[in-house]
């Protein structure tokens, strides 16, 4: 029963008579691990037997809890009309009431929800058209890409976008990796004010609250307990978590050696078991954090945008692309071997066990793998899905086969994913294949490319926007902006 206060935070104010009952019986419920969902699913007599509480009390608790649950879902008026004895507050029709606390959840009419949904654009016509207006409030959006591809720039621009009319709300920026770059932020602010974007007079760094979380525990605590308060206090419309993966990735470091040195043959069950346990535990953390973010987005009707990192994929995808007639060896050098260690970070996605590669390398048929994560992932990770009519340059960039960190458990929690793809062009072919083999960090950091970088943005999936169309864009001081087609030779 301890979960009732997380499910229904204000149950004691809406149904005060429940307090004494729960105070008395909570230990009994806890002892037989009866949770709120049991109250509404189990037969009251079963509860009464298990928890050894009188049937009367159980019935009263069940009644109160069910009404409280429904008054949150249906709006208090409906429930109050149904059970007249229940003083659940809310005398009038609660439909038009859009308080910040219950705003996202109690709207019963689809049209009302439509009015409440806002879209935060980045102020560029091309990009906003790609996103069908921008990032939707009430959803969790992920922006994923290599370092230096413009994730932070886009996030910063969104911080200002939420301050512009018609939103006129403020933003919270949670960093997990490095301090927020206030210099860049100030530069962008100056740029936007110079351009006199709509509502530029009100843009201010004061309306961006920042927080720094270096550990997963801190992040979870902040998200769970402090963020809801801050959202109400500052009239927040946008919460940004810059790199959700950072805190999870640290835990994975000890897996690095085991993975990269593994021979193509499985070593036995033990290692796989450990790994599976570890992944399952991590998945639990991801899910707890993710559902918390999701619930907040929905309840407070805010947009939550998280940045995510990518890591390289080696063997499984490469084979698919050799199968694809669009691809030649130019973009995939022959030097990549199954067990080659990633230089800086391990592939956090659990799908990248090099032991599996050789097993399937002899059988390139798709149908075998159709229902595997590896095969389907290319359409929801953003990499590896090469449309037949994409430009070759983009195909080469997107064909470098990254995968977003945190895997399927995280992907399922997202409402939308926007992939930022970059490629470096103008170098001879052999350096290209070298770039494939080194990791993202190495390609971006160590080697100084003298030629230009091209970037594309793609909606991988989003309930409100069409997916799969890449758009070339560039970074500038004021955010990101789209490039005209065929802008570069």
């Amino acid at each position, binding site marked *: 029963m301890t979960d009732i206060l997380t499910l229904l935070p204000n149950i004691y104010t809406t149904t005060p008579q429940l307090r004494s009952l729960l105070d008395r019986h909570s230990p009994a419920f806890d002892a037989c691990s009866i949770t709120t969902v049991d109250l509404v699913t189990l037969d009251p007599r079963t509860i009464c037997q298990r928890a050894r509480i009188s049937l009367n009390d159980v019935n009263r608790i069940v009644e109160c809890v069910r009404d409280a*649950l429904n008054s949150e879902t249906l709006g208090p008026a409906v429930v109050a009309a149904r059970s007249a004895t229940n003083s659940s507050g809310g005398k009038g029709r609660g439909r038009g009431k859009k308080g910040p606390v219950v705003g996202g*959840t109690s709207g019963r009419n689809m049209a009302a929800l439509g009015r409440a949904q806002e879209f935060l654009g980045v102020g560029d016509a091309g990009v906003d058209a790609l996103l069908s207006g921008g990032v939707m409030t009430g959803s969790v959006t992920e922006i994923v890409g290599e370092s230096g591809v413009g994730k932070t720039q886009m996030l910063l621009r969104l911080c200002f976008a939420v301050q512009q009319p018609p939103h006129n709300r403020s933003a919270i920026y949670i960093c997990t990796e490095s301090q927020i770059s206030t210099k860049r932020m100030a530069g962008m602010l100056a740029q936007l004010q110079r351009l006199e974007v709509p509502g530029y007079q009100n843009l201010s760094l004061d309306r961006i609250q920042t927080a720094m979380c270096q550990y997963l525990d801190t992040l979870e605590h902040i998200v769970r307990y402090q963020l809801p308060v801050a959202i109400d206090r500052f009239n927040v419309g946008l919460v940004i978590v810059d790199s959700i993966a950072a805190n999870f990735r640290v835990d994975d470091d000890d897996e690095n050696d085991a993975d990269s040195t593994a021979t193509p043959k499985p070593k036995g*069950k033990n290692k796989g078991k450990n790994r599976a346990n570890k992944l399952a535990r991590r998945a639990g953390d991801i899910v707890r954090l993710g559902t918390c973010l999701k619930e907040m987005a929905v309840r407070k009707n805010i947009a939550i945008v998280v940045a995510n990192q990518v890591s390289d994929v080696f063997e499984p995808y490469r084979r698919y692309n050799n199968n694809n007639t669009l691809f030649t060896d130019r973009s995939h050098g022959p030097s990549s071997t199954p067990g080659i260690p990633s230089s800086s970070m391990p592939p956090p996605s*659990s799908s990248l066990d090099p032991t599996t590669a050789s097993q399937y390398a*002899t059988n390139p048929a798709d149908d*075998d793998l159709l229902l595997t994560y590896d095969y389907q992932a290319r359409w929801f990770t953003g990499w590896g899905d090469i449309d037949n009519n994409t430009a070759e340059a983009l195909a080469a960039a997107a064909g470098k086969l990254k995968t977003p960190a945190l895997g399927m458990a995280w992907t399922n929690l997202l409402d939308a994913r926007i992939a930022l793809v970059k490629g470096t062009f103008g170098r001879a072919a052999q350096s290209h294949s070298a770039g494939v083999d080194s990791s993202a960090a190495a390609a971006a950091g160590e080697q100084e490319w003298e030629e230009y970088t091209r970037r594309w943005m793609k909606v991988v999936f989003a*309930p*409100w926007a069409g997916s799969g169309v890449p758009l070339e864009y560039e970074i500038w001081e004021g955010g990101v902006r789209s490039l005209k087609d065929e802008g570069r030779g």
Partner: protein
Amino acid sequence: MEPPPSTDYNRHRLPTRSAAAALATQLGHDQGSFATGSEALDNAWGGHGLEKGKLLEICGPPGSGKTAIALQLVSDAVAKGEKVCWIDTLSQCPVQRIEKLLSEQSVEDSASAITRYQVTSLAHFFALIAHLMDEDDASAAASLVVVENISLLFTKEFPPSSDAANATQAVSSNGVNREQIEKPADKRGRLIADIASRLQRLSASRMVAIVVLNQLATKAVTGGGPLELVPSINSANNAWSHAFHHRILLLRKQVLRTELPAAHRHLRFVFVLKSSGTDIQNTNLSRSDHFFVIKLTEAGVEDEKQQAFNAVTGAISMAEALVNPEENGYNDDEAEEEDDGFSDPGDVEEAPESSLPNDGHLKRKRSNSSSNGAASEAGLGGEGSADFETTASYCSPVDLVHIPEATTESVAEPFPIVSQARGPHLSQAEASVPVPEEPASATEIPQKPWRTIVPDSDESEDDVF
């Protein structure tokens, strides 16, 4: 104090009605079904689309078009003047998109026909379903209910790997009534079955069509191997899948560069897992009569041109047959081999060439006279034997059918449910295939028979994350 009158809400009885009256209502309802815009989809659901009183489950990875199909049904229902109830879980339905769909059908005052509920936990959801069952006023008279991503509720209630933590906690909290403590896995199973039966009752008693969207989860195959995707909500005893009349799985597939009229990104491959109450347990992923292709665009769902598509699959199959000649012509669903890795050592003595331990290779080789295939198989032999020791320790990957007995000549059916539950068109086709080693007829499309979808796997062995 007397118990509140509504405590027996979960033992709601079906109202009694004469069969003749029921038939009259059914016949009288011309608009008792909702169409998607794709004829193939509508056919999969009985010809006229999703009928009232039926339950439909749509599974698929993110971006595969689950919501798109649901929205299409919604817009059709609204266009027919029906009321719709849309239940969002931990996400918000994009109203913009619904309005766009509806405006194309020139329906005015559209969004008000849709009642939307937001549930943020399983408890909320159960309470809401109970409310919908109880409710007698007009507001609940929806004839289509959509439950968006029901799996999120379960993911939230039962995060992965919470079992161990909860178990230790339960033990530590003094074992007075430990036998009455429900394990999280059991509870999950109970709640899944409970939801299924409640939805079933709701749809039957109110003649409501219910659409449930289900995500996919990855499942680790013990011992390594690629992660399989399985529907996130499922139950070991089929309590979940039995509740649904129709179940489809949406996937995407790499299509070779061809003259397909539609852009690749719009194509979705629909696998029918269950149609009109009939389980199609073994959906062969490569047989073109086991799936069809739809096109998802901003304008909605429509059929992909079937003939163009058939040409494509034919081309793919041909290409694959050229790449793997040993697979060509092996056509028997009863003796499915899942994969090279999942062979059974007991079959070795059945094979003429007992030097090769991997019977998957052997069987295919026997079924094919091509010397080319034999040569490539011989080349693989070394690797096959090397893999054999490790792969033999696979403890029955749950979502693959493993029928070692079927490779012998015995007629005994190891998994009777597979053959019994198969769709009529399949069982007819396969009744004429008596012996596994029978070479396939040349008219069949070349196919690889060992990878199948078996969606209803045993939940208890799951590592869903």
